[in-house]
């Protein structure tokens, strides 16, 4: 457990020292959301209709873009080998890395999402559902994406492979996440969608680290 907390602490310190890199996905998210009204026209009705899907797609893409370097650095400098050969299991390594990655990239995004939602004139009662759905959905995106990253870490070139690998698994998250916000904006209850997201969330964070750990083991043993 000592190694686990050390690793989270290390990641957060490193992210703080490389603030420029860590804010990349936040900037990307903001740009996509802000460019949309310029592109499709600033009609309030239109924007409030597309807002749930738009914010969710932007969050999904921002998360996916940030994933690429999740394990690459640790793989290249040999830190991963150290973990694989230590008494700690790679599952705890995977868990710590994925969790700190979520804190670094997704939490800022969840914090600013309500502001963007207001600027896209999403109804106020849908905003807390948006935050809740992102809270459940973004860890899921990172934990599922982590499997893809771990599988492609050992490869020399992997630029387009990762999105192709993980996007199909992102679609259920996108459907339930965006539709939870949409039905709330339409005046209905989003309980069903949120329950499904919650179930996926529990499954994802409980099982994905095991898949990540075994994929990393394969990458290391090359």
């Amino acid at each position: 457990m000592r190694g686990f907390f050390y690793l989270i602490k290390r990641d957060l310190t490193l992210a703080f020292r490389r603030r420029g890199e860590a804010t990349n996905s936040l900037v990307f998210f903001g740009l996509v959301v802000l460019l949309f009204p310029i592109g499709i026209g600033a009609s309030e009705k239109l924007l409030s209709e597309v807002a749930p899907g738009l914010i969710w797609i932007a969050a999904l893409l921002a998360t996916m873009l940030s994933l690429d370097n999740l394990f690459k650095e640790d793989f290249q400098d040999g830190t991963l080998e150290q973990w694989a050969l230590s008494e700690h299991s790679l599952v705890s390594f995977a868990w710590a890395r994925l969790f700190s990655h979520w804190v670094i990239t997704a939490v800022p995004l969840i914090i600013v999402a309500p502001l963007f939602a207001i600027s896209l004139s999403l109804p106020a009662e849908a905003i807390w559902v948006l935050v809740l759905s992102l809270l459940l959905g973004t860890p899921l995106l990172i934990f599922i994406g982590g499997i893809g990253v771990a599988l492609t870490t050992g490869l020399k070139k992997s630029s387009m492979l990762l999105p192709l690998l993980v996007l199909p698994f992102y679609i259920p998250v996108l459907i339930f996440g965006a539709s939870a916000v949409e039905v709330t904006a339409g005046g209905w209850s989003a309980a069903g969608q949120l329950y499904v997201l919650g179930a996926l969330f529990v499954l994802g964070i409980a099982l994905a680290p095991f898949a990540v750990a075994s994929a990393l083991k394969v990458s290391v043993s090359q």
Partner: protein
Amino acid sequence: MQLEAQNLRCRRGPKTLFTDISFSLDAGKLLLVEGQNGAGKTTLLKLLSGLRRPDKGEVLWNGMSIRSANSQFNRQLAWLGHQNPLKEDQTAFENLSMLGAIRSRNERCAYEALQAVKLGNVKHKAVKTFSAGMKRRLALASLLIADTPLWILDEPQAALDKAGIALYEQLATEHLENGGMIIMTSHHDVAIDERFIERLILGQ
């Protein structure tokens, strides 16, 4: 305490790197793996540490396979590949504490280990300001705070200057005198007392 290799074979693609490698190493001994570039030294080290699986044969620690949970092999092992597992944006001390947290620790404090590798006065400097030799020394310092009898080191002297090499040899000798074991590769002569050294030459 004994590490034993039985009939190890490793192929890479169509090429057989080595076959029938057998040896046994006791406490207080250093195994020096020699061979030309591409002879499979690093691969052999990876087999011995358990990173790779041999195509044939087995590695035993105290008579038990290193893969079995009972052997507690990973608890006894400190591995250092040819890269230094360091983060450029962290200081020497932070890097060392991280490496100390991964392996099982002995009682030596991290500052003392940094003093021992002559990095005491730069302990709070970021590693990105270090030269290649200083990084290697920092990586070697992580061995000093690890409570592991077996060190498997891939070219530990790479990038070190003469003083650094002498320092490494001194640290290695201390480890061997305390009953530790070392498996290492090297392209240079190693000035460690011959009574500790056993040699394994690959590619013959």
